[in-house]
């Protein structure tokens, strides 16, 4: 077992030089001579019956090489339920839904042909808001929902409720009926967040020798392979997916997207086809972090014990279920997380509306549920007159405590992290003087997230020049895992320099299955599979070396590109010599490794409709922030921001700090000014960067970062993924600090200046959410 210290370093990124010289070729930069340009014809209404779609005229236009429509792709795909056809089929369910795809010699020709497709639509009533979708006589987004193929059994569904996941543990009614408790009831609402990855979704597809080759900007090559095959009605082995450098993902690219359109066009035309979303298309159809509505109630004793908690979360999945079906699972671990609970019941519902489908975005459902939970926690503290930090310190989950689904948590992690934050607060003077007449507020909040484990495969080839090649389905989306953590791990395992580890980027023809890059899983799952592959390589190397050195393998160590006899430096041979010798005697040395989540147990019978009942690797974070709120304009300035993050073991502290700074800033955008709104006709109103306001350099502060190491983790060398969680607590920290500054009940994000002014001037009454009934039984199906 190599020394973990050998894997710990600030390895620079090997992709930085090309990126700094404009040489990196992302998918948007690809597609050579002879590549056709494609566009999608998209519907411009939220709900309609398709009466006619006639492509005859368009097909005869100059330069047009192929047009495909719903007839060419009859299948449906989805997560949990197969509800999503590739093209609008029979009816249109959202503004922006694809109707046809066109490939032509030039983009202008493709656009002209798309515009020439004759479309006749008969408008149908649309449901735009969840409250509307849940009324008893609401039009159904999917009238045939009962007939869809169910891919995971066990969830309640009905009408516009696409999916309902529930948790029931203990006797909540009895807890709420106790005479010694205070009942605190809170409601919250959040809007959508657009990833705005700088590289839009993009693909170049070709069809050669009866197989598809898809070069694409994705986080999930194997999902692209499976979904493309399903929609085209072919075997997945007929699809090869390769992934160049990805220009940002943040979860947007955690689902199959444009690939099947390009594949169909490539087959129909016999030419390579490039399809890239315009920025407007990305804004209007991006798989956003979903808008959500939350009611959470707790029964708390005067001492601060949470004896009962119940909550309902409505998640807008848009016109198709997508990731939201899966993400209903997360409510148990996020809104039901952080604290020890007596009895608990939670319901999380994905609701269909006639709006663009939503998807996964960094720490997905956790970001708004943490906002709701932490604001609710502060409302509890106010109601029972308890200090906010003392309440948290008393109640955070510790070693042996039960989570919402009855999972037993291991180790005291959040408590010591909170203590650390308290100590940090004490060390530095408050920035209150910098508020200069504005309202100063401060908050420390906690959050629980997880590493999404699951299957990964890796192969390591030892080369006769003493280098190693790591082959996986991993993708470099910008987080650095593929260029920093993975070569560091393999190098330490094999006694090589990380520069001598070649890391192959995803090619589904070359590497085994992988769930994909997201959920903080690259370093953990791909790292564990790589470690297992290295174990085999090392065993073979040591056997060859032992023969060469006439000693036992146990007496050998690997370091600095050499194998040495223990205690006798300079005694051994180089790894290059071993590799060359093995190659001539027995053939080249290679090893393969695999990993998957072990499946931590929940309490049987607690959870229904869940994809994950318990967290294999929980990850915790504590954030503290200070804000100044301008009482005249409602503008919120962040004065200081501090993060204590549980990382298990930090392999590359500098890279982790870069992820934390970037993740916090994305969270500041979400908390303060990134607002997506939907017009009454179901169209997203922010169609570009002029109206969708992301953080600029002047909006942000340097985040003070403290890494908490040593918490239990099944990851290789005890690591946990570090890139996903930095955004988790930010909405909560800002909202609680603004509530602290203003003395107002913050119930919504983002806290744009008009919203803050409305709060300060008490222009609107409190948010009510009457459609989420107070009686839990009235608001669940199952």
């Amino acid at each position, binding site marked *: 077992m190599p020394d973990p210290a050998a894997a710990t370093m*600030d390895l*620079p*990124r090997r*992709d*930085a*030089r090309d*990126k*700094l*010289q*404009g*040489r*990196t*070729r*992302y998918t*948007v*930069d690809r597609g050579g001579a002879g590549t056709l340009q494609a566009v999608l014809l998209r519907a411009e209404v939220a709900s309609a019956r398709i009466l006619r779609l006639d492509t005859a005229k368009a097909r005869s236009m100059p330069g047009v090489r192929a047009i495909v429509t719903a007839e060419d792709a009859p299948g449906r795909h989805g997560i949990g339920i197969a509800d999503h056809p590739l093209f609008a089929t029979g009816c249109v369910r959202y503004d922006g839904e694809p109707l046809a795809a066109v490939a032509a010699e030039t983009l202008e020709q493709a656009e002209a042909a798309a515009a020439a497709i004759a479309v006749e639509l008969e408008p149908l009533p649309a449901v735009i808001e969840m409250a509307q979708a849940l009324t008893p006589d609401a039009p159904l987004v999917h009238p045939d929902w009962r007939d869809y193929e169910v891919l995971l059994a066990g969830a309640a569904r009905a009408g516009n409720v696409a999916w309902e996941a529930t948790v029931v543990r203990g006797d909540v009614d009895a807890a709420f009926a106790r005479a010694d408790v205070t009942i605190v009831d809170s409601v919250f609402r959040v809007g959508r967040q657009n*990833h*705005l*990855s*700088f*590289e839009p979704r993009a693909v170049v597809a070709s069809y050669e020798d009866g197989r598809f080759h898809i070069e694409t900007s994705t986080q999930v090559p194997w999902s692209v392979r499976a979904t493309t095959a399903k929609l085209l009605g072919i075997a997945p082995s007929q699809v090869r997916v390769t992934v160049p*450098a*990805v*220009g*940002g993902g*943040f979860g947007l690219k955690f689902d199959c997207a444009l690939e099947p359109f390009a594949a169909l066009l490539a087959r129909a035309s016999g030419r390579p086809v490039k399809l890239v979303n*315009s*920025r407007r298309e990305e804004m209007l159809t991006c798989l956003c972090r979903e808008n959500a509505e939350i009611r959470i109630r707790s029964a708390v004793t005067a001492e601060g014990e949470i004896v009962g908690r119940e909550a309902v979360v409505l998640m807008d999945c848009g016109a198709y279920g997508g990731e939201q079906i899966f993400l209903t699972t997360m409510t148990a671990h996020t809104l039901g997380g952080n604290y020890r609970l007596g009895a608990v019941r939670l319901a999380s519902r994905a609701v269909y509306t006639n709006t663009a489908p939503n998807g996964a975005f960094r720490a997905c459902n956790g970001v708004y549920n943490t906002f709701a939970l932490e604001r609710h926690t502060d409302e509890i503290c106010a109601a029972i007159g308890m200090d906010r930090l003392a309440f948290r310190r008393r109640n955070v989950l510790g070693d042996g405590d039960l989570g919402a689904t009855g999972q037993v948590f291991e180790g005291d992690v959040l408590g010591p992290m909170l203590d650390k934050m308290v100590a940090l607060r004490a060390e530095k003077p408050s920035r209150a003087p910098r508020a200069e007449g504005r309202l100063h507020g401060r908050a420390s909040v906690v959050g629980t997230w997880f590493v999404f484990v699951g299957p990964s495969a890796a192969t390591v080839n030892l080369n006769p020049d003493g280098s190693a090649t790591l082959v996986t389905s991993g993708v470099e*989306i*910008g*987080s*650095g895992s593929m260029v920093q953590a993975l070569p560091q791990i393999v190098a330490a395992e094999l006694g090589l320099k990380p520069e001598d580890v070649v890391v192959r980027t995803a090619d589904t023809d070359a590497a085994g299955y992988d769930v994909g890059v997201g959920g903080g899983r690259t370093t953990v799952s791909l790292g564990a599979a790589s470690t297992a592959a290295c174990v085999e390589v090392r065993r073979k190397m040591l056997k060859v070396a032992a023969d060469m050195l006439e000693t036992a393998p146990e007496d050998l160590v690997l370091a600095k590109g050499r194998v040495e006899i223990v205690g006798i430096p300079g005694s051994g041979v180089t790894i290059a010599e071993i590799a060359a010798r093995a190659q001539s005697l027995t053939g080249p040395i290679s090893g393969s490794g695999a990993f998957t989540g072990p499946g931590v147990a929940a309490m049987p019978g607690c959870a229904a409709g869940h994809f994950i009942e318990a967290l294999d690797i929980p990850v915790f974070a504590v954030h503290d922030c200070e804000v100044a709120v301008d009482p005249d304009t409602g503008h919120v300035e962040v004065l200081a921001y501090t993060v204590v993050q549980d990382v298990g073991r930090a392999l590359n502290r*500098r*890279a982790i700090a*870069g992820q934390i*700074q*970037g*993740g*916090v*800033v*994305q969270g500041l955008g979400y908390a303060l000014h990134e607002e997506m709104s939907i017009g009454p006709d179901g169209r997203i109103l922010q169609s*570009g*960067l*002029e109206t969708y306001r*992301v*953080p*600029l*350099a*002047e909006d*942000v*502060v*340097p*985040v003070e970062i403290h890494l908490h190491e040593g918490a239990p983790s099944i990851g290789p060398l005890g690591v946990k993924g570090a890139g996903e969680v930095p955004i988790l607590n930010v909405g909560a920290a800002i909202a609680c600090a603004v509530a602290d500054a203003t003395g107002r009940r913050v119930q919504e994000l983002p806290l744009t200046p008009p919203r803050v002014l409305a709060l300060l001037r008490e222009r609107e009454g409190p948010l009510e959410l009457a459609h989420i009934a107070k009686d839990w039984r009235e608001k669940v199906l199952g």
Partner: protein
Amino acid sequence: MTALTVNGEERASRSGPMTPLLDVLREEFFLTGAKAVCREGFCGACTVHLDGEPVASCLVPLGAAAGREVRTVEALAAGGLSRLQQAMEDHDAVQCGMCFPGMLMTLTDFLRHTPAPTRAEVKAALAGNICRCTGYERIVDAALDAARSA
């Protein structure tokens, strides 16, 4: 044909005069460093130098670049990374990398005019350059370092 100088070389483009300079660089000359992210002048990822001044090449029609000198990120490293590029690498500033071609063109020009900037000045100079990944601070650190070492 429109004649212009690109990275020190005389070039002629057969695109129409209203074609955005960005598309000419990317599609015709295969200089794909400058990126099309918003095409509206907000993100700065397409920034190039036109007669030495940073411009959003998505908003410049080819006709307006006729006879003028264009410099792109591909020409920034002459014989080795520029001081600014080197500082970005040293600070581990790069993530997905899509914003850097534009960031570098903006900052290269800014540091030429403001050799000893304050942190606030660097941030103000980046008002037209968005980065979605890094949270900016390291980019600012690197720019300040590049200025100090100049």
